């Protein structure tokens, strides 16, 4: 049997003790500064997947920035993320796991209205703060007072009013509606119809279509035949692409002063690039356009850093629509935790409600229902676009902001048939 040298044993024991002491010390430090866990589900697959991936990158950039500064209150930030497949049926299970198994400190809602809807009763019943992620009127029924949406809108009236005012100013008397038979587009279309009726616009065409329709020629021909002054479209990405192509092919007639409004997808770089010049003349909503009238501290820096990462991650290279607003969620949470010096949900919610938040997407103040007090849905007109050129969308003058007034960067070109050329 080999006997050890007593001197060596002492040295080994010393080294062992040192290692153990270091391990104990580091464990203690870790326990003191245990990470702040923020949980969310966000679509990485399904209909909302493309937007969800870009949005998540924005949030991850905030996490990396915060952690590079040493975290919040000395604690690193950890994101716990699951893919909800754009399917609301998956979110109750995921959020229950986030709360009960992962023991997250804070919650961010899934991207989109439908995946968020099942979470609202859950957070209300448990009295939890929930940061919204581009959902629409999802708190209308539940009225949870700890809900704060990052999307720059509040209701369908404020959304549609800018679009309709433009039409009214140009003497519009008639309107056509084309909307997908799905939650967001129907909510939008319902609000738009009410406002149009209130303002005396006569509806000459009103058509719903099943989601994922890709053949619109008959509907566009019917719109053309009804000779409207304004055409309001509420559609989802694949349908928006098909509608733009159909309108370019068939035309909508010389009476149409403006067309567009609520077309989801025309904010995403790859779709904008693929449509190129076919977008010219369309007027549509967005959350940000690189016009000189829109200058928020930190936004340009964020977008230039995002562009580098987006190339690596192979997500929307422009990232105008969702990523900055996801970064803003992080900024608001960070400010609230620092100000309240903790993670008490009620204190955080009170701070959220009472404060005007400084973010890279501009100041955000919330109204009672957790939506923006000063809605800022930008209506932009695509002009002077060429085909197959992604970089052109980073230049001013390609998405001219028509409303709201403080950010206006140009005048509406109309009628549409003239504006498209």
């Amino acid at each position, binding site marked *: 049997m080999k006997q050890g040298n007593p001197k060596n044993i002492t040295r080994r024991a010393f080294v062992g003790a040192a290692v153990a002491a270091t391990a104990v010390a580091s464990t203690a430090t870790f326990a003191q500064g245990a990470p702040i866990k923020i949980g969310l589900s966000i679509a*990485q697959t399904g209909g909302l997947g493309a937007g969800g991936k870009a949005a998540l990158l924005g949030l991850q950039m905030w996490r990396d920035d915060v952690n590079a500064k040493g975290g919040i209150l000395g604690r690193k930030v950890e994101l716990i993320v699951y893919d909800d497949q754009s399917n609301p049926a998956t979110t109750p299970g995921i959020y229950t796991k986030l709360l*009960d198994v992962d023991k997250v400190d804070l919650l961010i809602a899934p991207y989109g209205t439908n995946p968020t809807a099942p979470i609202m009763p859950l957070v209300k019943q448990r009295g939890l703060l929930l940061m919204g992620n581009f959902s629409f009127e999802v708190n209308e029924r539940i009225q949870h007072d700890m809900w704060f949406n990052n999307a720059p809108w509040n209701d369908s009236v404020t959304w549609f009013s800018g679009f309709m005012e433009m039409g009214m100013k140009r003497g519009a008397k008639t309107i056509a509606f084309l909307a997908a*038979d799905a939650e967001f587009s129907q909510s939008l279309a319902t609000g738009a119809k009410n406002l149009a009726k209130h303002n005396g616009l006569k509806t000459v065409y009103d058509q719903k279509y099943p989601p994922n329709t890709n053949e619109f020629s008959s509907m566009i021909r019917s719109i053309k035949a009804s000779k409207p002054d304004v055409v309001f479209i509420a559609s989802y990405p694949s349908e928006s692409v098909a509608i733009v192509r159909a309108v370019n092919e068939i035309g909508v007639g010389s009476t149409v002063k403006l067309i567009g409004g609520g077309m989801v997808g025309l904010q995403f770089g790859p779709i904008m690039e693929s449509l190129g010049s076919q977008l010219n003349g369309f007027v549509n909503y967005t959350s940000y356009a690189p016009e000189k009238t829109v200058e928020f501290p930190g936004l340009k820096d964020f977008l230039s850093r995002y562009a580098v990462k987006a190339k690596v991650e192979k997500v929307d290279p422009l990232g105008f629509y969702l990523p900055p607003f996801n970064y803003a969620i992080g900024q608001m949470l960070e400010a609230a935790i620092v100000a309240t010096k903790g993670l008490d949900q009620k204190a955080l919610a009170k701070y959220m409600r009472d404060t005007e938040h400084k973010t890279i997407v501009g100041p955000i103040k919330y109204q009672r229902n957790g939506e923006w007090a000063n809605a800022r849905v930008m209506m932009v007109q695509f002009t002077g676009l060429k085909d197959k050129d992604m970089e052109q969308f980073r230049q001013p003058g390609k998405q001219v902001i028509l409303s709201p007034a403080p950010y206006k960067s140009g005048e509406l070109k109309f009628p549409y048939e003239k504006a498209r050329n």
Partner: protein
Amino acid sequence: MSGKMSSMGGNNRIFVGGCIAVVLAAIALMTGVRTDYVFNASYVVLQFIVLASAWNILGGYAGYVNFGTSAFFAMGGYTALFMIKMFNAPLLVQIIAAACCTGVLGLGIGLISLRLRGIFFSIATVAVAIVLETVILNTDYFGGAKGLQMMRPEPIAPFTSYDTMLFFVMVLMAISAVAISRYIEQSWIGRGLRAIKDNEEAAECVGVPTLKLKLIATVVSGALMGAAGAPLVMYMRFIEPVSAFSLNYSVSALAMPIIGGTSSWIGPVIGALLLGSVQQIVTVTISSELNVLIVGVLLVFFVVVAPDGILGLVRKLRTKNSAKGDAKGGAQ
């Protein structure tokens, strides 16, 4: 004959004992586990046991492939919503109403589409799902395309949370569905349905009441699917047509019996436990994206390698082993 009878009696006793054991295990789980997530995930797996067992009554025993599971499931959910909105009905009443409503729907579909066979019957069931989804999409009372959010009421004593209550209800529903499926398999109904599956004309010629049996199968299968969908509103706290009528329910309800084995009541249970659990684990570990891939790959694998499912595979292996044993015995 009497030997067979006593063996069936023995099997029944084992089955009843198994059911009691499952209920006791569920009660132990509810008293021992404090995280709602366990009940949430288990609820989904149990829900698939009901759907798979229900699908197998028509698809497995009678050979009529139903692609419209989502239609029955969603109608169950919307019937429950109607009962809540109209009468503020408790969960049990919602489930009974959903089962009745979808049973009648099953009867209707049976009368209309059982004149169709094979792929034409399957297409008709898809059409029913599309028609019903369109109706719901355009009915404002049910929230239309926007759907409706619901606040859960307080759980009924002795349950401490609504999640545990839903879990226990689904345990009972799964046991009932499996028991019904087992009864049908072993009774004259199951024998008749198997005769229909083998050769419908021949069955009719020898006096099997084919239409009557097919109607029983569609009604029972539909009622069970609807009952499984009834608690959906309170499970999700929300219902909207696109996810309620999702094709995923139809595909999973079909894939689970095929993977487990369609010839016996235990096949859908094995398939649902296996596939449902894997789906739940994958969703929160690797990626939800893999869910669909897993279902697809397993389905292709079993259709090609083991068309009779896990049950068939086990039977094949047993036969092989016993043949080997016989050969060895002979050699000795």
